[in-house]
């Protein structure tokens, strides 16, 4: 039976490496790929009144931009490799949202790239890869 692999994809070089690695695994095992793009968003951040008013329009723009600039180009890339492919676009905390996607879609694995920020920055801001490794409900492949 073909399994579903979630690939966390943000258009960065690291996420491209993760996707390419996921493609080779999927080819070998006959899996299909769900490309997940998460826009960082916290419902507990603070906004000015003007930002509140613009939010709905901006959200639409952000979704559209992500769809055309990030997701659409890579779908072809994956399908050219002969892998069945779907995409999902969400707002939220990146690691938590990837976990929710994996759970909702019944995925077998999550593939993500690693930014490779050493030490200080990730200690302060946290790292998606590290968080995911801690909390993911399914096996996680972290591609360097």
């Amino acid at each position, binding site marked *: 039976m073909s399994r579903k692999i979630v690939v966390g994809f943000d258009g960065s070089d690291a996420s491209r490496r993760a996707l390419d690695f996921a493609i080779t695994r999927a080819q070998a095992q006959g899996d299909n790929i769900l490309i997940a793009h998460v826009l960082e968003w916290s419902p507990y951040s*603070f906004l000015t009144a003007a930002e509140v008013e613009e939010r709905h329009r901006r959200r639409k723009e952000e979704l559209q931009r992500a769809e055309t600039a990030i997701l659409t180009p890579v779908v072809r890339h994956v399908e050219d490799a002969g892998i069945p492919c779907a995409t999902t676009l969400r707002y939220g905390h990146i690691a938590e949202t990837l976990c929710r996607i994996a759970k909702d879609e019944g995925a077998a694995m999550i593939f993500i790239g690693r930014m490779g920020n050493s030490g200080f920055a990730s200690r302060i801001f946290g790292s998606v890869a590290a968080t995911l490794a801690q909390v993911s409900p399914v096996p996680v492949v972290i591609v360097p």
Partner: protein
Amino acid sequence: MTGASTGMTYMTKASLAALAVLAAGPAGAQGIDETVNQVFANSTGWFVSLIFSNFPGTTFPWIVGWLVVAASVFTVYFGLIQIRAFGHALALVRGDYSDPNDAGEVSHFQALTTALSGTVGLGNIAGVAVAIGIGGPGATFWMILAGLLGMASKFTECTLGVKYRNEYADGTVSGGPMYYMTKGFAERGLPGGKFLAVLFAVFCILGSFGGGNMFQANQAHAQIANVTGAFPGWITGLVMAIVVFLVIVGGLKSIASVTEKIVPFMAAVYVGTAVIIIGMNFDMIGTAFSQILTGAFTNDGVVGGAIGALIQGFRRAAFSNEAGIGSAAIAHSAVRTKEPITEGFVSLLEPFIDTVVICTMTALVIIITGQLIQDPTTGLFLLNEAGDGIQTVTGNSGVTLTSDAFSSAFGWFRYILVLAVVLFAFSTMISWSYYGLKAWTFLFGEGQTKELIFKIIFCLFVIIGASANLGPVIDFSDAMIFAMAIPNIIALYLLMPIVKAEMNRYLSRLKTGEIRKFE
């Protein structure tokens, strides 16, 4: 429309004066100050006295009565909704009822904090000290009561604000009392909606220049000068005006978002410090509460007796949380939500946080640290020499009294307080620039140039507010903010059945489980 045109004449005068002040520089400011004061005092004094005039034979301003009576009517009409829906409001803010698929839209939490940043300000710090200084500890009781009642007013106006907002093709929205006055009245077949809406919009624009701008800049400068020593106000004004300009005209989101992050933090530090000070004096808590309760009903030496305490408490609550003024309805109506009533539920937390929590903390710290001097034998409060307030340990009143009370426990807190006042003033300005703009576009239509004109005038008023001692101008614009409550509350009375129908429909669906939490 006569109201609108006279209003515009005053505004033109004021902005001409602003340009003159700028051109003449600080040296010539004194003479111009006096001229502007004179012009304003002569032409607008009657309006200020009208708004702030007292009920015959009392020192109780009728406008405060207007707000408190309305709050009581809404409390009864909606069956103590502020208590019934309190838990549900918290659940909404926590996001329990938010559809995860709507992530990326403005959350209830964000709507609440945005509206709060417009109301939490100097009133919570300085105004409370004034109220306690005159009305004694008993004023706290009435302030809390008025805050609790005000929750029902906010609930009513914010629900209507969302229900009758305008949505445009590009996804932006405009809302507020002017829209429920026009659309809501038309729907119910009531006359006069347009007239009330124009009246409200004019008051709102002038109020946004005054209480929401000049007064804030003025007080921020006073606080800074208090710590650094005296220096010309136009320096503070110019710096603040540039920062405001960068945010509202330049769209410099980073400054705004930094402030918006620091303001809640400052509020938390303020309340946290107050809690610590109260904890350090825990043996005084019982005494403080008995002073608050007895002071609320007996004459224990305060100005005007128990009635004086009531007047001061009600005034403070009304001036601080803006319930019934209509400003919060503008802030909340920008939020996209499937159910207008949910914004109403969320908004009823504002007077609670603003008045019942933050104002009460200020009051408790002043009372508990023993700033007010009592006669050791009779237990009555001693009046100061002028007889217009209670004698304090340091002889100070207003914001310095708050500063004394906090500094008696932590000396460094006076500096935090200055920072808090300046930041609160700034965030209040940003919020009011938005309220004023919405009223402006309602009157003159949407459009980039029209909006830019408003924003530039707004920035000019920041400089005037900080640099000049324009008593009558500030009085006038303060009166404008309260004048907003006249058309707004009339509209709320006429439209409250609509809110009730919405409320009943929503609550029954909540009960049957049709509306449920998302996992």
